[in-house]
């Protein structure tokens, strides 16, 4: 690439501003992308990165400001125009139709709707060529629902490349990948850059930003606060710029584990559609210890969470509490046995959006005194208890009678935390507890989990974020296709080694070793 070509500005965002009600998501943000450049858009959750890219992609209209692609103004609020101008986006939550094939998903929208024919052979040939050029192995006839997460992401990228994207935006692409898959993705991105594409890479993972980007742009609270060449900076500087202060992650002091409070012995559960059940899983949750469960999403985490949470029972094998087998199992019995469950999705299973904070706070306790007596609710008591949670767990809200849908994600999570921790549980099942939260809330949740651990609770931390697992866990298991790896002590495995297990290798050696 010549100097002139490299300096060509392919994308310019000029003072983009966007508010949602009272929330200022983007505040006069300007940035430029040059040909063949990889920019990392960095910021914590809620900083405005995704909103900015959604504006670029036409899914939102900015209140003010302009977008220029290859020197031409881009009509706002028009995804079609963005696509035609060469902007391609790989969304954080994949926009794929599971019941349709890869070919159908890629071809969707690429031919005008009034045209009578779709030429599957031509589409297939083009997909195959692109897959070869960019090293994205995928089967065009496969139903998307049967693909792994890594494969689905390849389809998302192919969609953009098929439409001849010259600017590729990737929104938190590595959140769901193993370390090896991340390496493969970066190889694909480097290939793309070599072929003339320019990339915007949204992330909050500092080591990846350092690895792949040429330049870093940092957003905080909707504003662009820093911009620097990657080679001129380091992770600490980035972290500080992201938060605006020294990052104070909670310190993890060494612990002495106690007795096993919950044990799985060779437990198997049935598959649920595409989600695998547990396959002869063995696990100990010890008092005073955080057990981390690492793994790519969709490998049986839900099965384990549903099991421990009381929603399913083992088909085979033993689930023991305090060394005693269970005659009956249900969510209520689990709660009664001292298990606190922080669900994976606070909107779908954790809270009821149109219920008040009080009504949400008593979801697990409404059926017995003091919240009700013989079928008769005691709302005064419920409200008082909720007020205590609000104060003790710093839930920012107008009051206990507010509808919970008006709260931010972080405050919702704090209410859920308060609801389950108030009962002083001995076992805590934390499933993706900080997903989508800003750094303040993340630190709060982590400190609560560490405090519970200090009090002698056994914590099971399920997370797709390997960094989080490695930072907090005393012992780590990897889950892959429903199988659990042996226990790895803190510090004994590198991310790459864990990545091998996450990809499913290591289990065969393990099985062979057990068999012999």
């Amino acid at each position, binding site marked *: 690439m010549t100097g002139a070509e490299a300096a060509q500005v392919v994308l310019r965002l000029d003072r983009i501003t966007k508010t*949602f009600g009272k929330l200022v998501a983007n505040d006069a943000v300007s940035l430029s992308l040059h040909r063949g450049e990889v920019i990392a858009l960095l910021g914590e959750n809620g900083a405005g990165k995704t909103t900015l890219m*959604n504006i670029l992609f*036409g*899914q*939102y209209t900015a209140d003010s400001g302009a977008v220029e692609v290859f020197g031409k103004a881009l009509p706002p609020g*028009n*995804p*079609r125009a*963005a*696509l*035609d101008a060469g902007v391609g*986006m790989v*969304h954080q*939550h994949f*926009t*794929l*139709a*599971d*019941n*349709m094939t890869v070919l*159908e*998903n890629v*071809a*969707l*929208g*690429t*031919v*005008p*709707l*009034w*045209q*009578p*024919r*779709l030429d599957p052979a031509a589409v297939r040939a083009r997909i195959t060529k692109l897959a070869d050029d960019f090293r994205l192995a995928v089967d065009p006839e496969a139903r998307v629902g049967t693909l792994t997460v890594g494969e689905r992401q390849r389809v998302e990228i192919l*969609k953009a490349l098929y439409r001849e994207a010259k600017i590729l935006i990737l929104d938190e692409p590595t959140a769901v990948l193993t370390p090896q898959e991340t390496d493969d993705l970066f190889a694909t991105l480097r290939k793309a850059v070599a072929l003339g594409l320019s990339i915007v890479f949204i992330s909050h993972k500092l080591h990846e930003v350092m690895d792949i980007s040429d330049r870093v742009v940092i957003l905080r609270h909707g504003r662009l606060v820093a911009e620097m060449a990657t080679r001129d900076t380091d992770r600490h500087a980035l972290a500080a710029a992201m938060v605006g202060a020294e990052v104070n992650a909670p310190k993890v002091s060494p612990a002495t584990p106690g007795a096993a409070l919950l044990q799985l012995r060779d437990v198997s559960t049935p598959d649920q559609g595409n989600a695998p059940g547990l396959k002869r899983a063995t696990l100990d949750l010890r008092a005073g210890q955080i057990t981390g469960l690492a793994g790519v999403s969709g490998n049986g985490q839900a099965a384990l969470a549903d099991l421990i949470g009381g929603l399913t029972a083992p088909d085979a094998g033993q689930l023991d509490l305090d060394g005693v087998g269970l005659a009956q199992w249900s969510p209520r019995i689990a709660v009664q046995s001292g298990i606190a469950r922080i669900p994976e999705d606070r909107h779908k299973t954790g809270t009821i959006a149109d219920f008040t904070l009080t009504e949400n706070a008593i979801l697990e306790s409404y059926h017995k005194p003091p919240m009700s007596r013989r079928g008769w609710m005691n709302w005064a008591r419920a409200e008082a208890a909720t007020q205590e949670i609000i104060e003790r767990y710093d839930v920012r809200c107008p009051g206990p009678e507010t509808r919970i849908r008006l709260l931010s994600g972080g405050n919702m999570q704090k209410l859920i935390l308060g609801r389950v921790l108030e009962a002083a549980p001995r076992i805590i099942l934390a499933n993706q507890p900080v997903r989508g939260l800003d750094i303040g809330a993340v630190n709060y949740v982590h400190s609560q989990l560490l405090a519970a651990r200090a009090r002698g609770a056994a914590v099971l931390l399920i997370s797709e974020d390997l960094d989080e697992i490695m930072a907090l866990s005393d012992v780590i298991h990897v889950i892959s296709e429903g199988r659990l790896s042996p226990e790895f002590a803190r510090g004994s495995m590198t991310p790459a080694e864990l990545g091998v297990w996450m990809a499913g290798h290591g289990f065969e050696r393990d099985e062979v070793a057990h068999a012999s």
Partner: protein
Amino acid sequence: MDMLDILLSASFWAAAIRIASPLIFATLGELICERAGVLNLGIEGIMVAGAFAGWMAVYSGTGLWTGVMVAMVVGMAFGLIHSVLTVPFGLSQHVVGLGVTLLATSSTYYAYRLALPEVTSPPKITAFQPFEIPVLSDIPLIGPALFAQTPMTYLAFVLVAVVSVVLYRTPLGLALRAAGENPAAVAAQGLSVTGIRMGAVIVGSGFMAMGGAFLTMSAFDSFFFEMVNGRGWICIALVVFGAWKPGKALLGAVLFAAFDALQIRVQQTPLGADIPYQIFLMTPYVLSILALIVMSRRAEVPGALMVPFNKGER
């Protein structure tokens, strides 16, 4: 006449195809709506409105096919009302559907009373006559059954093929199916989910109205109250029974109509005379419920059926 005689007679199958025809139109219409992700419970009322509108146009002097077009347009108008409320505004598809059924039915009855205030028995028009397709209609059994029907029945069969081709081989059909599976995928490819879903509901409602028009312009030749009599609801069951596929829906409609034709004939047998006629009249509805139970493994339900699409919901 015993059972075997009935099943082997051409007149039985001809009746079955005739009874199936309005169901084919309406089931196709509902299938189009649901494939795009919208449940249209206005189907019963839209069939009533279509039945009256088509008949009324002919009674007022237009040609038969013009009458069919009028019925279709009336259906599309109610489809527009339904889709405006359910798609961009995302209101409950159950409530809006039932409201549209009530609106369509009551406006039809009101219009009828206004147009024909003093009639005691419903006036007649000259309906579609059976049209025998040369050569094909001479094939034993199949000939009189399939190829000696009225033109609207032929249209129904053609539409099944057209809908099939559009759904599975055209870019439009692909977009429509995707809208019913994951609207986010559609939006991400630069297409308008609202446009596609509203279009599907409007076109589907037009089909439903044509199904109603068949009753007054082909099966019978006049309009009377309670004429649709739950056929719309049965078509909703038929969509499920046909696993949301046009070909299977056609089969389901014909099978169902065959049972209906059968019960009419069995009533005339010695065995049938002993059973109260209400039992026979019940069979279509009971069968529909059984069909739903049988198909209750819902692996083929469109993934986003009844889920409104909120652009950029935070």
